[in-house]
């Protein structure tokens, strides 16, 4: 479809009944590699986390005896430490091209999964019941970030007939909460040993946690550099890649290598005083979801308005503990790491986490405009949007746009409709900025 804009958006035709792909993982793998190969060769490294994620899951599927299904907000460190292979079903929902994902969402509804369950999760349940993902030997989840996740974890466990281990996330963030979570992580390791017959190797656990620590430090440095103007990142898409890496690959060597390259690139750009492919005029913060069915829209916004994504909630990590190598302390570090992952932190506890984190990013990263792309089925975060809007405007004078979208399913809000929200908003921001400069 060629819109009135000089940009071509993807065309989706859901009137035809798409097939469920049973060799789904390889289909996703091919689709990702094909899409990346069409990009500028000098920029292809940016999408390496997506490639690593799907490659790892394909490798896991080839020998599913060691496969552990995990929730996306459970750190894979725990599984790597056991020498097992993590597969994150909702990660697959995200990596899956839209036209292949939609039939799985619909399939889950036929099995009485409610249509108001988050599409990341209903898509993954649809994949499971269609035998598109390998049957795991164990399932480890957390109760964070929300009820959707709790419902999905129990549904998957019930479908597979695999007794899960679900770590109950606390509401608060304090030593007592960390103690509670840590105790469950230790129990989780016992569960994995029992289910898989493998023993935890403390040296491997230590190495995994050191790499995880290193990844967090690198992300911290990169995020600090993003405060510079222009924001020294090649494209907004890299923020999404950071989130893919940090949610699903922390503890791995390939993530550390990729983040080192990202940091090196960011430092070089900062040194030269350059940003990405478009001139930076409006610094934006995507404080929640980022619709992923059509990426060209973000390039379009950069081109037309100079709207550069500087902040994306899922790539903004807080985490400090340095593990000493002692088992108890490693588990405690892992507990804090899991609890501080962005969506876990902002959704499982008091709404102030979401509000104050958003205000912090907008202030420290000199954000001009915040965007709350409200994933339709996200009950916990939709009920924070208005208060966040009030705080950002009252305290910082930063406007917030909120609109309903399904981050994965364009049938809810199409790309055109999204632009119908974004364009007037950015025009208003641009006009206000000019007025400020004149004034």
């Amino acid at each position: 479809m060629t819109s009135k804009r000089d940009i071509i958006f993807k065309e989706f035709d859901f009137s035809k009944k798409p097939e469920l792909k049973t060799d789904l993982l390889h289909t996703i793998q091919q689709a990702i590699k094909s899409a990346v190969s069409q990009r500028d060769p000098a920029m292809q490294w940016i999408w390496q986390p997506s490639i690593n994620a799907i490659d790892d899951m394909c490798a896991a599927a080839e020998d599913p005896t060691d496969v552990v299904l995990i929730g996306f907000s459970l750190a894979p460190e725990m599984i790597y430490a056991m020498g097992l292979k993590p597969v994150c079903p909702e990660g697959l929902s995200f990596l899956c091209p839209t036209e292949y994902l939609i039939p799985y969402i619909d399939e889950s509804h036929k099995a009485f999964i409610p249509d108001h369950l988050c599409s990341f999760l209903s898509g993954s349940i649809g994949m499971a019941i269609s035998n598109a993902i390998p049957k795991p030997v164990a399932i480890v989840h957390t109760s964070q970030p929300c009820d959707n996740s709790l419902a999905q974890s129990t549904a998957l466990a019930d479908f597979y007939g695999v007794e899960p281990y679900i770590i109950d996330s606390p509401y608060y963030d304090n030593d007592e909460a960390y103690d509670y979570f840590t105790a469950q992580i230790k129990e989780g390791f016992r569960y994995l040993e029992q289910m898989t017959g493998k023993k935890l190797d403390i040296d491997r656990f230590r190495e995994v946690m050191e790499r995880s620590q290193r990844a967090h430090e690198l992300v911290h440095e990169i995020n600090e550099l993003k405060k510079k103007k222009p924001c020294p990142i090649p494209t907004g898409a890299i923020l999404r890649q950071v989130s893919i890496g940090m949610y699903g690959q922390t503890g791995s060597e390939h993530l550390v290598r990729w983040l080192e390259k990202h940091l090196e690139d960011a430092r070089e750009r900062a040194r030269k005083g350059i940003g990405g492919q478009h001139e930076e005029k409006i610094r934006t913060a995507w404080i929640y979801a980022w619709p992923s069915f059509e990426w060209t829209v973000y390039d379009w916004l950069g081109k037309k308005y100079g709207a550069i994504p500087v902040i994306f909630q899922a790539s903004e990590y807080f985490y400090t503990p340095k593990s000493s190598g002692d088992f108890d302390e490693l588990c405690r570090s892992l507990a804090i790491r899991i609890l501080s992952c962005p969506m876990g932190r902002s959704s499982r506890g008091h709404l102030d986490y979401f509000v104050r984190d958003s205000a912090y990013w907008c202030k420290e990263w000199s954000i001009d405009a915040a965007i709350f792309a409200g994933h339709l089925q996200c009950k916990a975060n939709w009920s924070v949007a208005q208060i966040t809007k009030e705080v950002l405007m009252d305290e910082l004078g930063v406007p917030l746009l909120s609109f309903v979208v399904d981050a994965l399913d364009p049938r809810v809000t199409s790309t055109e409709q999204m632009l119908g929200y974004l364009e007037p908003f950015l025009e208003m921001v641009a006009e206000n900025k000019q007025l400020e400069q004149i004034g």
Partner: protein
Amino acid sequence: MTALEELISLAKQNPNPTVAAWKNEGKKIVGYWCSYIPRELLHAAGLFPYRIKGVGAEGTTRADVYMAAVCNCSYSRAILDLALNGTYDFLDGLIGMNECDHGRRAHEIWVKKKGVPFDHFLFVPHKSDDMTLREFEKELLKLKVHLESRFHTFVTDENLLNSIRIYNENRALLKSLQENMQENAPRIKGSEMHDVVVAGESTPPEQYNRLLRRLAEELENRPPLADYRARIFIYGWTGDDSSFYKIVEDVGGLVVADNCCFGTREFWDPIHVDGDPLSGLAASYLNRLPCPRMIDGFNNRFQNLQEMASAFRVDGILVTRQQFCDLHGVEAFFLKKREKELGVPFSAPLIQEYVGQDAGRLKTRIEAFIEQLER
């Protein structure tokens, strides 16, 4: 007024007249969100535990500024709306908990935007084992200390045991009423039973017990209900409104049992104390007939469903849920897998809205379900 009429009247008013009577004596009332919050502890602190309800909500306009009508349940929004319009200004405090995302956020917004004189958030674990039990005991201790400090009171073991005894009597009386519905021709309807349970959530328990005892006596003189088409079990309603039950009755069904928030889940299991009453309270609440918020609870609920379907000679199960309730929503997925094992027909999920209920649509579907049962 008969006891039943009095109870239904208490259920349908918010606040109900017991609030004014309590306040006139200079005593304090503390609201609470969910049945996992032990009322006994509040009662032992000399407080009137008043369950927050949506009764009286005429819409959700105020709440919809802060919560999204596209994905947040209308029950939580109705409650928040009442809070924002001042209906709950009589409360001296509010206890929130992590029952679900909707309720949790509604509580946070209420406290932030409207304010309450006293606020406590109780973290209740999502699973039941030794570790989480210890955690829940700690949480209850924190609540106890906070109540004592705020309301200048002291919760002794003696008065906690007394409160447990009173509420256990509530439960026993309710269970006995419910068991009446095992008869071929019970003397109380499901909708009436639902209202009776709702009344008890916001009536001082001693008064409630007196009313329940009167009701039990009055039932003996009530005409039996013999004219019905099918014996129905309702599975999954979370609201305080009995209109769904009435729709079933209007089309000739008789609701004989349920597994609902304001239903048997509330009173089926008594509190057992073996030693420390606070520990007994924690264990009993965490291990009672579980709500879908409990990760590990489906097998218990399913077993209970099978037992009740047998004991109450259920012809069919109406599976329902509040729109946007993910926790109850996934129950239908579990039930579908166990269709043969269950052995009792159940409906496809019937979605309800607490505000803006589409009674016509529900009536059509329920009637069709009952017709199927009759074939």
